[in-house]
């Protein structure tokens, strides 16, 4: 058993941690994907299951966090290593929040009851979710590969999500004004759209951390926060 790097044990621990983060990421992706599919099918059973599964995401996040802290406490990480661990602490928080959005969408699914969703609105929602999930997926890949270029590019795609959201917002507001009986339902959809829009923002934050690990600079990459037309939640 020859030793290649003098800190192979530590390197192995970091690798293990990265694998856990990816696992958490795929759990979150699955949750968002599942929540959207359940919403489309108006499948309350699936929605309840995903809602409950958020607990596992939270636990995973806490496990990774304490592993991070243990490594910081015992291994004296320096330079890139310490940025990596700090980034992971940030990234898992973002992932957990995305998981919470999926949970929120499931809750909306239940609140909507059996009522139908306007196909045009649904299309926007689905596009937003697809865009956001794609961003998340590529961001996690960029994290694994330490691909700074991709990480810098992804936040720009947030604009597309934002414009979809703005479209949907105007549409739903108009609908609510014209048909007061749809206010509650439209409001719920607006919430779902908002969650998806926030998800893209959180992916941007993740990308900031990826750039930080490699370059050491902390810089706002998401310049579109101001384009949102509602005051947010």
């Amino acid at each position, binding site marked *: 058993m020859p030793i290649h790097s003098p800190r192979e*044990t530590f390197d192995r621990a970091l690798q293990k941690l990265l694998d856990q983060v990816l696992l958490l990421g795929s759990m979150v992706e699955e949750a968002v994907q599942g929540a959207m599919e359940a919403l489309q099918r108006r499948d309350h059973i699936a929605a309840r299951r995903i809602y409950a599964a958020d607990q596992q995401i939270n636990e995973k996040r806490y496990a990774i966090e304490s592993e991070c802290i243990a490594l910081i406490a015992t291994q004296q990480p320096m330079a890139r290593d310490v940025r990596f661990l700090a980034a992971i602490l940030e990234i898992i928080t973002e992932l957990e929040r995305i998981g919470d959005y999926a949970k929120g969408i499931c809750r909306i699914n239940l609140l909507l009851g059996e009522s139908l969703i306007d196909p045009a609105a649904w299309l926007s929602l689905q596009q937003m979710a697809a865009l956001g999930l794609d961003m998340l997926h590529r961001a996690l890949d960029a994290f694994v590969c330490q691909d700074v270029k991709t990480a810098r590019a992804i936040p720009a795609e947030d604009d597309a999500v934002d414009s979809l959201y703005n479209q949907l917002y105007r549409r739903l507001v108009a609908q609510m004004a014209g048909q007061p009986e749809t206010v509650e339902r439209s409001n719920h959809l607006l919430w779902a759209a908002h969650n998806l829009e926030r998800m893209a923002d959180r992916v941007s934050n993740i990308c900031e951390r990826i750039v930080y690990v490699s370059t050491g600079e902390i810089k706002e990459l998401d310049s579109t926060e101001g384009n949102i037309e509602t005051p947010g939640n």
Partner: protein
Amino acid sequence: MPQTLSPQYAIQAKNLSVYYGAFRAVKNITLSIEQRKVTAIIGPSGCGKSTVLRSFNRMNELTPSASIAGEILFMGQNIYAPEVDPVEVRRRVGMVFQKPNPFPKSIYENVAWGARLNGFRSGLGRPNMDEWVETCLRKAALWDEVKDKLQQSGLSLSGGQQQRLCIARAIAVKPEIILMDEPASALDPIATLKIEELMRELAEEYTIIVVTHNMQQAARVSDFTAFFSMDEDRAGALVEYGLTTQIFTTPKDSRTEGYITGRYG
């Protein structure tokens, strides 16, 4: 006490006190060391870390006037019982010292000597001495560096290599436990990291107890950590013992926390 102790311990101290003449250097240590784990003993200078370590293979007896009270159980047997042979204890509980101290012999002889001394036998299904020396040097992660100069003096190696040679020498007599008394304190940071990495590797096969004044090192290499401190009567005592991650993230005793955060008294 750690909650996840397996029932089988490599070595156990029970109410161990060590005296130098009338002075009690260490008092009432009760400690159970897990098998095939790295256990680190940390604490401020003079708190009796090395004293306790050296009592684990009766090396403290080489200091005149040293005596102990209490028991040290190795494989369930008190190594201080009158019928126990210190020579036998030291074969089975090996030791690596603070300063690399290779014998002024060839690299090969350094490893082979102890094995031969303890009646090394080769034969069917067993390694011959050359193979055994190679095995031990490989385990000590030194083989690649010395395989072409086995007949050179052990003193011709660098400090870090010398210390790994000393580790190879220690494992060549097939001990069950390896005691390490500040094994890297005389080495540069890279050599230190190599020794630490080696400890992790060796823990797959041996129980390792390491005394270090470098608590970062303890944090890096060990599975369990014992924190020793000095009482008002200047006798060393065990303050806290547990999983290293627990000791270094959420120590239970305020003295431990004070020490590892550098705010010690």
